[in-house]
């Protein structure tokens, strides 16, 4: 059974079509990248897969659960790193993890042990008791990453996970994501960064104007072709501007 199965998914906001007709399948154990320019429908897709939005039409299954009918059940089983959210302003990272642990029904001892592990991994141990509103963007991002993985889910949705992180921490996160996938878990990474997708993902779906325009395995691309070439070709753009603008 695939981790994610999408058939003919459509979603509009008023007159604006965010996702036109998307069909996609992600197997268990994949590190799948959803790559596309701004406004391509990546975040809408992720929010629908995690039950935050209701699609206009289509069939969706996440770990065998319908997120439209059972949004909370899906979110119990997956981890989510939203692009724009930051930890609650008036909680410390430690308290935020305790809050996440309480909501997810984790034992206090488990939470405490994982807090220490994540603080060491991403280097925010000295900030564990600082109010989140006083943390830098990078520190807030580290806390959000740790929060998404706190319950060690079999499937994680991460939206632009490397934003605001320094190069050292970026490398640590990349290594962690590969290890996580190698342990048999599934990771869906949403990004507009072609290099990140090419480096990390075992498979990449390119979305453009609400539809899937390419589905490639970067490792299988011929030597003379890069993921950037595929991306620019399929989204009808050049590095000088969108072709239609000329």
């Amino acid at each position, binding site marked *: 059974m695939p981790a994610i199965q999408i058939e003919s998914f459509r979603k509009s906001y008023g007159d604006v079509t965010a996702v036109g007709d998307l069909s996609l399948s992600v197997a268990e154990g994949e590190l799948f990248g959803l790559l596309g320019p701004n406004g391509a429908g990546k975040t809408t897709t992720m929010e629908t897969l995690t039950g935050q939005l209701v699609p206009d039409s289509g069939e969706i299954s996440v770990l065998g659960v319908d997120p439209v009918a059972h949004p909370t059940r899906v979110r119990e089983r997956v981890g989510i790193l939203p692009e724009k959210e930051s930890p609650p302003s*008036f909680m410390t990272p430690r308290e935020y993890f305790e*809050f996440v642990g309480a909501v997810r029904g984790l034992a206090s001892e488990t939470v405490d042990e994982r807090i220490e592990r994540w603080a060491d991994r991403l280097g925010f141990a000295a900030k564990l008791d600082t109010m989140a509103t006083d943390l830098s963007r990078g520190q807030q991002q580290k806390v959000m990453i740790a929060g998404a993985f706190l319950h060690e889910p079999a499937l994680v949705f991460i939206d632009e996970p490397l934003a605001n992180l320094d190069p050292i921490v970026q490398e640590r996160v990349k290594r962690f994501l590969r290890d996580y996938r190698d342990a048999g878990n599934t990771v869906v990474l949403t990004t507009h960064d072609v290099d990140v997708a090419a480096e990390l993902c075992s498979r990449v779906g390119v979305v453009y104007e609400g539809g899937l325009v390419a589905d490639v395995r970067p490792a299988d691309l011929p030597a003379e072709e890069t993921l950037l070439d595929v991306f620019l070709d399929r989204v009808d753009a050049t590095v000088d501007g969108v072709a239609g603008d000329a």
Partner: protein
Amino acid sequence: MPDGRTRRVFVAMLREEWRLHGRLFRGSHFALFPVFVAVVTAGAAGGVVGTGTAPETVYAGLHALAVVFGLHTGSIGFVGRDAIDDLLGDLTLLVFSARTLPLSQPRLLGVFVVKDLVYYALLFLLPISLGTATAIAAVGEFPGVASLAGTTALLWATLTCAFVLGMGATLAGLGLAGRGLPGRAVFGAVLAAGAAAWATGVDIAAYTPYGVFLAPTGPRIAGTAVAVAAVSLVGAATFDPTARRPARTVGPTFRRWRRRLGDPVATKTLLDVHRSSGGFAKVLFSAGVLLGVTVGLTDLAGRITGVAPSAGISLGAMLGLSGFTTYNWLTQSDDVDAYRALPLSVAALFAGKLRAFLLLGPAVGLAVYAPAVVWRGGPVGEAIAGAALLVGVACYIFGTTVYLTGFSPNEFLFDTALFAVFGLAMVVPLVPVLVVGFALAPVSPALLAAIGLGSVVLGLIGVALYRRAVPKWTRRYRQD
């Protein structure tokens, strides 16, 4: 700032304010707000004066409202930056841009304050003045167009001064508080001097914008101008909107509080209130403002009509309105998006907010009500009925607010249609109760029993509205 930059910054800030409101409260609805304000204030003032309340009472209430409005405007712009960030995401107002642009910070702050003054004086205070003065003139003997225009202009001017006083007080308070112990000592000394003057019988009200409105004599105008200017200058001199605060480190509290409260969302919500600017004191302050307005109005009404209003009923009804401000504080620091990564249904989020409200709302209202009703005196039966009324009104207003606005109780303040519905929902139960409290004291046992029963019914309606709100907002939050 040379070469017209001040003017350009002023225009840009006006546009920024308009867009902020447009984003927060949907632009087209907000555009109708001044018209709506004029119509509602005219209707309310005409109705209240037409049923026997003295016009002076209405004018006093309006000036108190303008001061409170000024206090809140100042605090939303500066103290509430965290809350606005949480509501709208990353937000950088032009007033905070002195670090990145070649603009003087004091001048920017000055332009910001003037912008707020012009914006709110035109969009809110002018319609209020026009509506009130016209309605009161229409109810009594029409004084003629020239006199009506004069009254409207004077009211607008004094309401604007009251608004400036409120804004200046916020900035001065924040500025002095930020100067450590000496600043706080100065702030405390000013408050103590005011309290002492009031206690020794000095007619402080004469040297306020309201006093000027009642009798615009030279000494009153001069005294008021000095007071408003002094407060504003202290604010301008001491307040620094770009001051960095040190990173706050706190001991772990969540787990300890959760053990007592049970619900993680309720625990987080109360932590938010506790740790955001003002702490739990801001909830008490909001109720205290309502208390001050009620006491002022009942005093004035008593002096004018010769009949002392029922302290229990009037305070209970008015302090029940603190349910709205309390819910506002409970939702200031988060929105539904903040929980979307977690396996929490919208129903669970509302349940957490309800628990937090039940812990904080009635308790704060009663904490203010109990000493106030002892201070004002009156029959025990009225005090008990007032307490029941407070709890009933608070639950009713909570349910109504949740039903109409979900997690954004501020939204309807500038959305004309929502505001009209909310206003109607408040007026229908509260006006009869306030008429009883203001005009029929001492209240008969039969009326007290009816008020007690009505309080229970109001509370139940609040619960019913809350229950209906949950599926409504669950659907809506998943649509966009």
